[in-house]
């Protein structure tokens, strides 16, 4: 009989080792999948995991890793605060969209005035406020009317998508765009552009913000009273109440912070890598960030690493499509497998595998 025995404390060694084991297992299983599809598994695995970091074109891909990981980490850090406290914001995608719309709208309102010192900071503030307010809708509905925040935040994603389409077709449409949908390209408007801080590195303000958010969250959780309240509420809401935690304030704080960070991510994306408000501006960062938050075990540093790993599978996966002709669906299935292994092997951190009959208690 194989059985699991709970460890007194999580194993430090396995905490670091399980991701490695999981990635190796994914390589084996994924390789089998690719071989089944008629692709050389060695080459596929190398293209996905090795080439983006060390391959011929790594000079380009390394930067792209940051571009892809930045918004994921920024959103996931905010979500993790709420998740730790048992507050479920599933609608970061919507807050990301609204943040982008608000930020872009502020920038476009100033067009073509040039005053970077004024316009870009205002956009950043507007982006954060946009995401914050959108997250306040489930927040206030929950604290005032006891409406479940999972449902409200999730359904508001679809509402945000409709608003996005409306904005791209209507109010924010580029007046010089010959009637086509989509706003002016903010990258071509110097005062509003979220440019690379060092050319070719992929490092833009959104990546910087993500790093700051990681540090901020780390300090908050480990050193600050609010962080303690968050952890306490997650572990035992009743105990938290006795300890003087104000649940209303905590709900609004967690939803507000995660909304503001998602809004920021949207703003930095629309002003930088994406460049414009268009009907299909959002690409699912808000949902993928939920995965990243849990892969990182809701720990800021873990989230940083999980975000980079996730970004790697996207970038490497795209490369595998173009160079090896693997279908996009195979990459998606592969990412799913990676998650399964990462999450499944995690059991080794908290449990010991025992063989044979149960020892006397």
């Amino acid at each position, binding site marked *: 009989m194989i059985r699991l025995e709970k460890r007194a404390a999580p194993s430090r060694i396995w905490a670091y080792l399980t991701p490695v084991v999981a990635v190796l297992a994914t390589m084996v299983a994924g390789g089998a999948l690719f071989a089944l599809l008629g692709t050389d598994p060695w080459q596929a695995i190398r293209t996905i995991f090795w080439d983006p970091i060390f391959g011929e074109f790594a000079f380009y891909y390394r930067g792209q890793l940051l571009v892809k990981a930045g918004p994921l980490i920024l959103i996931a850090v905010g979500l993790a605060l709420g998740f730790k406290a048992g507050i479920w914001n599933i609608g970061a995608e919507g807050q990301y969209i609204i943040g982008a719309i608000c930020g872009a709208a502020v920038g476009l309102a100033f067009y073509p005035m040039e005053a970077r010192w004024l316009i870009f900071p205002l956009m950043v503030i507007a982006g954060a406020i946009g995401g914050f307010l959108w997250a306040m809708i489930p927040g206030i509905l929950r604290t005032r009317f006891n409406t479940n925040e999972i449902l409200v935040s999730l359904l508001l994603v679809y509402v945000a998508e409709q608003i996005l*389409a409306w904005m791209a077709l209507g109010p924010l449409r580029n007046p010089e765009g010959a009637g086509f949908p989509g706003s002016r390209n903010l990258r071509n408007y110097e005062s509003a552009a979220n440019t690379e801080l060092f050319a070719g590195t992929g490092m833009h303000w959104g990546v910087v913000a993500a790093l700051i958010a990681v540090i901020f969250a780390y300090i908050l959780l480990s050193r600050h009273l609010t962080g303690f309240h968050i952890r306490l509420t997650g572990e035992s809401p009743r105990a938290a109440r006795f300890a003087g935690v104000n649940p209303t304030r905590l709900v609004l704080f967690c939803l507000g912070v995660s909304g503001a960070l998602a809004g920021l991510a949207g703003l930095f994306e629309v002003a930088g890598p994406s460049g414009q408000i268009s009907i299909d501006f959002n690409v699912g960062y808000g949902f993928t960030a939920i995965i990243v938050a849990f892969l990182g075990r809701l720990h800021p540093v873990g989230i940083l690493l999980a975000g980079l790993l996730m970004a790697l599978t996207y970038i490497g996966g*795209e490369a595998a499509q173009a160079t090896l002709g693997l279908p996009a669906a195979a990459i998606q299935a592969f990412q799913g497998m990676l998650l399964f292994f990462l999450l499944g092997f995690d059991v080794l951190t908290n449990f010991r595998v025992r063989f044979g009959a149960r020892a006397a208690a």
Partner: protein
Amino acid sequence: MKKRTFLAAALAATMATGVAADGHEPTKVGFIYVGPIGDGGWTYEHHQGLLAVQEEFGDKVETMYQESVPEGADAERAMTQMALQGADIIFTTSFGYMDPTINVAEKFPDVKFEHATGYKRADNVSTYSARFYEGRAVQGHIAGKMTQSNKIGYIASFPIPEVIRGINASYLWAKKANPDVEMSVIWVYTWFDPAKEADAAKALIENGVDVVLQHTDSTAPQAAAAEAGGVVTFGQASDMSEYAPFPRVSSIIDNWAPYYIDRVRAVMDGTWESKDTWDGIAPGMVEIGEITDAVPADVKAEALALRDAIASGETHVFTGPLNKQDGSVWLADGETADDGALAGMDFYIEGLTGDIPN
């Protein structure tokens, strides 16, 4: 270390065998798709174009593609990736790839780019699009003749010029064929949701519509019409012949293959230059799928005559006198719409009811 040198050598060997007999490497052709190649519509037809290029040039070309590429930063990366891999020409097949295409083209002046349905060009960026509205006019004629209830319906995605042009063209020619005709438009506000398309088709049919035109790519409206019985539909993007001879009585097919072959050949010959192509029925970019026998012979003959007249240039789909919805004059008697006005069309023509969103 040893293994890596081995791999490198192997790579070099395969590249050497890839070199064609005349000493030129195969021309590398890249495609960026917005949907999956299994979408049965827009992306599917572009992928058919890729396969045709492969067929035409055999081992003189090497094709690559990436599907379901989101517009924006991801598209830019996909293009850069292909350019780095040595692509000679890259087709970017969605309107939303416009700015990314221009950005990447700036960084790779030696690579040729072809952007579908956009309007921004550069020395190494061409644009191309199809005059689907020509096909819509033919459909409109058939629709006007086939309707018994004098109500035809149109399932539209988003209010962009391309879609509005299609609505105007089909309404205009339906009205010419049958002055009593009315058209209802449903905006589904999505590019892709087959079940919603089915619901939209049902909603139209339940409101008395007996001809459904669609600007969405799935066959869901065809199935809804088949179930309702007595409702006419048209294939969109691909032939949808599985619903022929009825309810699907004809179709508009996007045929990109001739253009793609042409442009790849131009790259091989060194004659490629930046230009804007907007082709319709005449060069075969827009095909009218078989008109089935469910259509009376005289209507079919008229539709084919209209198709030929459009192809020969004898008839322009939008010819005055023609007013806008608000009654103001758009085209004077005998005047035809110029391409600029068509490209940015954002108004309904006279007779259509309802508002265009925004």
